[in-house]
């Protein structure tokens, strides 16, 4: 299935300018940083990032910042409220002619999955309810990675974290399913939601371009392979990102005014190809293969895509 690209159909069309400069304190091979780098190219310079406490707090460490644009550090639980305050202040100051309109900025929340799926969910729900004109960029590395990889609501079934270890009682590690934040957002009826992968830069850039043309709350949910937390060599980040999509575990999709479209339908390799690359799933294969757990993950993916196929093509 093909998806029409209106703005970015060739890699050469991506902006050459870098908005996130190198040399930050983030881990080598951070999949989240790569997604942000690509997204920021499309968003451009006139941006204020409202950062929720998390891995990306390490982007701006005094006296350095990697951004051309502005940055505000906020708490985990209230980054969308920080975006509200800035958006409102910019609007008010422009209306009162204390700030020229050319000085206006895009307001972008930067948050990890701990913030997005859990602590700031209430503040996010309210910001969507107020129809706040903002971008919510989530680097979803499926754990509280910055604190040493603990279970979050985004941790998938079968993954091991330091707070969901494998045991005789729980041989698969995490035994609950990843929260479906895409659908939770969609239930709020925001104008735009999309999933992103750094390994699919045109798909990513196109979605950012679409989002930029829409006023209101916009979620950009980026699966962010985490070499440190997931246990793979940093050079494998693109491959892990690719396999997440190709196995069907991370569907690339968007919802414009609530209507869901899959922007890429993979041929679907077995989930095992993706799981095997990562230390966090190693226990599913060694010392003994946990067939039931692997089957469970595969069945869930199969069930998801069987529903997708039932959708009419775009």
């Amino acid at each position: 299935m093909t998806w029409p690209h209106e703005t970015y159909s060739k890699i050469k069309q991506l902006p050459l300018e870098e908005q996130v400069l190198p040399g930050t304190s983030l881990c080598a091979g951070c999949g989240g940083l790569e997604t942000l780098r690509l997204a920021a190219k499309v968003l451009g310079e006139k941006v204020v990032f409202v950062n929720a406490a998390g891995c990306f707090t390490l982007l701006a460490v005094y006296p350095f910042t990697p951004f051309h644009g502005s940055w505000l550090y906020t708490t985990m639980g209230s980054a969308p409220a920080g975006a509200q305050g800035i958006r409102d202040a910019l609007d008010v100051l422009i209306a009162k002619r204390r700030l020229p309109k050319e000085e206006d900025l895009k307001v972008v929340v930067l948050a990890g999955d701990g913030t997005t799926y859990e602590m700031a969910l209430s503040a996010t729900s309210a910001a969507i309810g107020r129809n706040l004109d903002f971008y919510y960029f989530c680097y979803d590395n499926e754990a509280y990675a910055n604190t040493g990889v603990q279970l979050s609501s985004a941790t998938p079934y079968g993954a091991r974290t330091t707070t969901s270890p494998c045991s005789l009682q729980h041989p698969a590690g995490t035994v609950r399913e990843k929260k479906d934040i895409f659908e939770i957002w969609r239930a709020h009826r925001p104008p735009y939601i999309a999933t992103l992968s750094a390994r699919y830069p045109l798909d990513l850039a196109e979605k950012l371009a679409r989002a930029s043309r829409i006023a209101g709350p916009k979620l950009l949910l980026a699966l962010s392979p985490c070499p440190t937390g997931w246990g793979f060599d940093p050079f494998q980040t693109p491959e892990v990102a690719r396999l997440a999509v190709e196995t069907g575990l991370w569907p690339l999709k968007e919802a414009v005014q609530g209507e869901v479209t899959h922007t890429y339908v993979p041929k679907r390799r077995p989930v095992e190809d993706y799981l095997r690359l990562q230390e966090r799933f190693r226990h599913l294969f060694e010392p003994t293969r946990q067939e039931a757990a692997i089957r469970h993950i595969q069945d869930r993916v199969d069930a998801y895509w069987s529903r997708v196929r039932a959708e009419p093509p775009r």
Partner: protein
Amino acid sequence: MTMSGELLTGNLAAAWGARLAEVDYVPAFPITPQTEIVETLAGWCERGDLAARFVTMDSEHSMMTAAGAAAAAGARVFTATSSQGLLYAFEVLYTVAGWRVPLVLVNVSRALAAPITLESDHNDVLAARDSGFLQIHAETCQEVLDSILIAYRIAEDQRVCLPAIVNMDGFYLSFTREPVSRPEPDRVRAFLPPYRPSHLGFKASRPQALGVAVLNSVGYSHFRYQMHLAAMNALAVHQEAADDFARLFGRRYDLVDGYRLEDAEDVLVMSNAFATKGKAAVAAARARGRRVGLLRLRVIRPWPSAAITQALKGRRTVAVLDQNLAPGLGGILYQEVAATLGGEPDRPRALCSFVGGLGGRNIAEGEFEAIFARMAEAGERGRGVGPILLYTEEDRRQMDQWVTIAGNR
């Protein structure tokens, strides 16, 4: 000079303070007994009486973040809360103060759960005393309004750049109508110029990063100590603002408010609305020949050590009447006053600690008489007492009765 006095509740006086300060932005969340403030502002914003954006937030945590972020973006911001709401915002108080952005938060003091109650004491606001917010505690509805204007002047001063809390007592001020003289807008502008911050604001032509991480103790120590120095600067800035305010409006506010201190040998230290009761008790005791006085603590952060020391030196007995209780310690302000006086060569002979007015409990005149008697006794002996909870035999009979009822099936 000023418009004629009108009867305003403390809450309405607070709303007028924000209106006269011509604030740009009011993020709000309701909580008793503060709600009348944001309701009033909502109406004014809706009708265009106040050119500000009013936004109902989802919690005090979000409200405080939005307030701080808007202040960082260059808007003049006002908000209000109370009690549990202040505690819910607590994490963000430190964050916003660390951003070094000015805004004014009115806290309508209310006791903290559990057990839950609605009336006033000061454990809520005093819990915030180390957040970096400046704190002004008002005694009257007039002082609520005036203190908001003064608070903006201090908070926005380049030597300070810290947010401020103006505190008033729930019910005793929030819903009590008192004659309030409303300053004329033109004169307010002379006192508090239109807000045009040069150092704050997010804009395309001049990006800034605020609140960035400092992953080392050297940087952290530096920035924290800068906050301390800035808060200390607020002492002098307050006096400048108070001088200007007195000149323009004829009302004088100092860091501390002395009442009949001239020859007082025993001095009661209080804050907020119950200080009025204390002053009445002092007047009554004076009429009976006791040489007593009262020192009201008005600015609590920064802590006006010099003014307190000056006011209390050489007295026979000083008793702090705290409307708060730190379990395992006693009265909070007593501890701070004691620490302030501790190193002074001519400190009072005796320091006493009383705790009263918890959960809005009244303090009767008779209780003040008992306090003065204990103070005199302590002064004679040269040894302080306390903490002593103000609690009468009648209170205890009432409580015994309730315990009996609660215990019976």
